[in-house]
Every structure is written in C-alpha cells, then in structure tokens.
C-alpha cells in the first residue's frame, strides 16, 4: 500500500480511532516503577534486612558465643564503646592511610598509563588487553601469591631487587613498610581499572579543542592544565569515588597478605570488624562500628557525587 493511489477507506480510520479510547497509556511513573521493581525487591530485602539487623543488633548486647546470644537493649552503649575504642580509631586511621595512599597513587599512575596507552601506536590493542589482567584476578588468590612473592627469604621480589643492588626488604614483616607493600599490591590490582576508565574518558574527549589548541600554539602543559584535566574531571571524580569506596572496604587482600600484621600495622577497619564479628562474635560492637563507617562513607560519597547526580538527573529531564 505504500505507494498505492487508493485513499484509505474511512472505516479503517474510524475503526482504529474507535479503539484508541480503550488503550489508555500506562503512565510513565507507573511504568518506571514497574521496571525497577524486580531489582528493588532484591535490593530492599538483601540490603535493608541486613541493615535493619545490623541497626537492631547495634543497640543490643550481642555475643553469639555466649549463651545469651542476641540479648537485651543497651541503648547507645555499643556506639559509646566504638567511639572510645582506641583500636577502632587506630584501625580507621590505618584504613584512611591505606585508602588515601592507594587511591592517590592509583589515580596518578592510572591516568599516566591511560595517557601512555592513548599515545602509543605499535602494540596498542595488545597493551590494552594485557594491562587489565591484574583486574581480572581474584584479590584473595593473587594476594596469596603476592605473599609468596613478598617473602623476605624465598620471595622473588627480594631476589630481583638484590640483583639490581637494592637491599632486600622485609616486605610484609617490617611494620614500617608492610602497609606500603599492601598498597603496592592494591595499586597493582586496581591501577588498570583507573587507567581503563581514564582511557575511556580520554577517548571520549572531542578532538577539535585539542587541535585548536595545537594551532594556537599552546604548550603540552597548558593543554593538560586548561583542557584535558578539567574535561576529564567528572570521570576522574567518579573513579575516585568508586575506588575510595572500595579501598576503605579492603578485606580480601589483607586476609591473604598479612592477616593484619606484622603486629597491627595493616589491621584496617574491615579486618578489625572481621575479628570482632567473626572471631569474637561481638556482633553488637561490630555492627555499631560498621554503621558509623557506613554513615561516613555515604556522607563522603554524597558530597562528592552531588554534582554528578544533578547532571545525570538534568540530562534525564532534558531527554523526556
């Protein structure tokens, strides 16, 4: 009928119109709610129930290994305990120490690698494929392998550095450098992630402003400072948030690399929570600390992400 010269019969016009009244549109709101329902049910059950449990327990006495189990309401006692627990604060300090150093190094190194990857010509695809390998490895499994490689007597790292004349180090046994060694491991594993995202960001940048800058005679540094970096900033903020949220939750690597040692020099908050919760089974104290931690993370993320969220919402509205 596409090019047929016969005009449409009137009946079909009326027929189709007549049926229209029956097909009222499902409102956008209803439809959008319908779409998020399956995911929300899962999230609500498995995020809110544990959260509610944790909140509940944090206001009670709860020692699972004692015959009393989860017992009476104790008010803010557990929070009081947490806030006055020197070990809690020192583990928070270690966590921040780890997170700040690891994330900053990963960001700098990752962005640098992204630039390099963007720049090279000869084995670009291969390099891009290979650089993400650490990312694909299970932190727990390779953590054990790293512990093996870090071993001061039998590890390959000491062997390698001694070959080039650097004195051997007690990577995980010296409390001065053990945290550094854990950071190195995390950097090894997560720098590719940052690099990958930064590379994606770089490749998504429009070419023309850079060409214009080249014609305008701008130096590399000026281009980076006034163009590249500000344009990458949103994506880097996001990586920063994602990495920080992950870094402060570091657990697997600590279990397999140091178990918090030597001494307590790598005992980050999650590992302390593990000991409190899964060794001493003091769920009350562990929950209180975890909730304080969650609150801090949410506030931190919320602050950093506000701009990003607003942009996203604005774009959605613009599309409607």
């Amino acid at each position, binding site marked *: 009928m*596409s*090019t047929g*010269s016969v005009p*449409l019969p009137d009946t079909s016009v009326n027929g189709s*119109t*007549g049926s229209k009244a029956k*097909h*009222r549109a499902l409102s956008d709101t209803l439809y959008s709610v319908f779409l998020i329902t399956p995911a929300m049910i899962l999230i609500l059950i498995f995020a809110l129930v544990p959260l509610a449990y944790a909140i509940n327990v944090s206001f009670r006495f709860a020692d699972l290994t004692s015959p009393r189990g989860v017992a009476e309401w104790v008010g803010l006692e557990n929070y009081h305990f947490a806030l006055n627990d020197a070990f809690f604060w020192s583990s928070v300090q270690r966590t921040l120490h780890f997170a700040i150093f690891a994330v900053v190094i990963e960001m700098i190194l990752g962005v640098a690698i992204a630039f390099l990857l963007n720049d090279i010509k000869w084995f670009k695809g291969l390099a891009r494929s290979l650089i993400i390998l650490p990312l694909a490895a299970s932190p727990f499994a390779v953590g054990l392998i790293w512990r093996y490689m870090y071993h001061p007597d039998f590890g390959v790292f000491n062997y390698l550095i001694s070959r080039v004349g650097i004195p051997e180090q007690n990577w995980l046994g010296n409390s001065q450098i053990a945290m550094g060694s854990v950071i190195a491991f995390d950097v090894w594993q997560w720098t590719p992630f940052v690099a990958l995202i930064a590379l994606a960001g770089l490749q998504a940048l429009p070419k023309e402003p850079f060409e214009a800058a080249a014609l305008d005679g701008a130096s590399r540094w000026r281009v980076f400072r006034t163009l590249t970096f500000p344009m990458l900033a949103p994506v880097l903020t996001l990586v920063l948030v994602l990495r920080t949220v992950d870094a402060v939750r570091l657990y697997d690597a600590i279990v397999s690399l140091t178990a918090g040692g030597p001494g307590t020099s790598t005992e980050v908050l999650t590992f302390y929570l593990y000991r409190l919760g899964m060794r001493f089974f003091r769920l009350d104290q562990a929950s209180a600390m975890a909730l304080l931690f969650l609150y801090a993370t949410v506030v931190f993320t919320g602050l950093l992400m506000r701009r990003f969220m607003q942009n996203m919402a604005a774009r959605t*509205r613009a599309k*409607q």
Partner: protein
Amino acid sequence: MLELRSVTKRFGSKTAVHRLNLECKPGEFVVIFGPAGAGKSTTLNLIAGITDPTEGEIWLNGQPLNRVPPEHRNMTMVFENYALYSHLTVFDNLAFPLRAQRMPSAEIARRVDEMAAILQIGPFLKRRPGFLSGGQRQRVALGRALIRDADVYLLDEPISHLDAKLRHQMRGELKALCQRKQATVIHVTHDYREAMSLSHRMVVIDKGHLMQFDTPDAIYHTPANEFVASFVGEPPMSFIDVKLTTRDGAPCLLITGTEAQPAIVSLGDAATAALAENANALRIGVRASDISLSTTASASHGTRAEVYVVETLGHRDIVTTQIGTHLVKVIAPSGLGLQVRDTVWLNIEPHTYHLFRDEQSISHPTDEMRIAQGV
C-alpha cells in the same frame, strides 16, 4: 481531521508550545516552519503522543487523543536524527513497522523493495545504518515512515541533511508520493524553500507562539510580522529603521542614521492612513528580489547606498549595500563590476517594501502596487 485545541507544553518553567491552535484537513500537507528551538519538534511530539500536553487537547477524526499511547495513534514519524536502529539492517529497519502489524513476510519483502526503489536505497538493503552516508540514512528513515499506512504522517526535517541535488529530487518525490497517498502530513522544517515547495499550508512558529498559519503564497507575500517576513525568502529580507517625517507637506519616511544626508522614502496611501494613529517603531523590510539598484541616481532609484560586499550566485549577484547603519541586500545581474564602497542607488518605493510597526505588518508591496495600479 487533526486538531490542536489550545495546546500548551511546558518543561519546568520553560514554555515550549504556547496555546497552539491548528487544524489540518484530511489529505492536507501542513508544514511547520520556524527556527531552531521554536517548538516545532515538540509540536510534532505532542501530536505523536510522545509527550503529553500540559494544557489543551489534541483531536483526531472527532476523538480526543489524550493519554492514548503512541502505539495506538496510528501515526508514523520521521525523526530529525534519523532514529534508525543501528543493530538492524536497512531491510529490517524498513520492515520494522510492518512486522509490528504481523504482516506476512512475502508482503513485507514486496513493500520494502518497492519503497527502496522509490528512495533509491535498493543497493544498501543489507547494510547497517552505520555504514550509510547521512543522506542515505535520511532516505531510509523516510522510507520507514512512509512504508505503512497511517492516519497522519509526521515528518521532522526528513530531507534537510541531503545534499542539494538529492534534496531537490527528494522534495519532488515526497510531494508526489504524498499527493498520491492523499496522506495527512505534518512536516517540520527550518528551510523555507522546502516549506514553500511542499505545503498546502504553512505554520510559522517562533518560541512556541504561532506567528502565521496560511498558504505559502500568503506567507511570502503578506507576512503577518517581521519575524515571518525575515524567515521566508533568500536572501533574507533586509530591514531598515525609519521615522515618520514630512516632505513638501506629505508624510514620508526618513531612514534613521541618515539624518546628515537624509535618505527619504515615500509612503503609500494605505500606509499613510494606518500611520495616522501611531507612528512609533517603524521599520521597512525589502526583499532582495523586489528592489533593484542602479549606478546612477534617477527618479525611480533615489535612495543612496554604498556597496558593502558583493556575492555571486552565478547567474546573478547579491549585492549587500549599506544605508547608514543598515545593510540592504539586492539581487542584481552579474557582471556589474561593483566594488566595495562604490555608491549605488536603490529603488525603495512603496511597491517594493513591507512596512512594519512594532514588528507587525502594516502594508505589503502587493497592496501598494494594487493601489498604485488602481486595481
């Protein structure tokens, strides 16, 4: 019969369409014309049911369409950015609307081939849209909209991205096709030639407000206001600010900025009558094709101007002239050998200009000519 009854669409505090009334007869080809951001596409989306009006109603064949979802409106649409499915081949793109109707595949194939032949995209049927040029994509998009029968065809800039040659050709094809289909078409464009060429009636809108709704001829020759006048015609109409003055006791117009060396323009009778009440914010508009220039002053060519720049069209030149601070474009025969800053004389006369007050039309050249010729 498609009707928009006082339709308003607001996005937040921004009003995209303001109390728009339209009615479009069955089989009529209506072009919505306006600059970017005028609300053209929003109007189309409202008709299609993609967005719901904030106020007002849309009726089709005597039935209100409010809250009828797009899939039940029996309309098709071409989108400005083609909206082709990049994961489907051209064939599947064209077949997509037919498959929704569960049409047998043999019939689908027949129709697709037919449409492909008309739009000259036969060789690309197996390709994905990503491998087509902009023009080819636009034709596929057009084909996808026209392949099935619908109550209303909504075309959003369907041929504006084609190159000049193809655009001319497709314009003709589109016009012929729609004539044959007796289809009700709402066509959106920012190209006045396309609008003039295709439409039975034209809707000129700006910032969501209806400026004029009339036949192409009427729009061109009797624009309702400065906006319509400025947007229809190429090169665009030139505007000159004027002040009411008198010469030899008769009212006439003084071009502002030429007070030192007054450039005076005479007034037609109709205009004179109208100006008796209020003579503020006057402006005359001249079309490049309505006036002519001469290198010597004469009775007919009495307005002095200076050549600003000369651009050629090949068979003719567009001479941009400067009167005071105003630029006036004139179409002139090529080969006059005019140089920048040469002095020329223009015939700005009642039968060559439109007169506007507060941006609204007061008189048109045709009126004046009719009066002058005593018709």
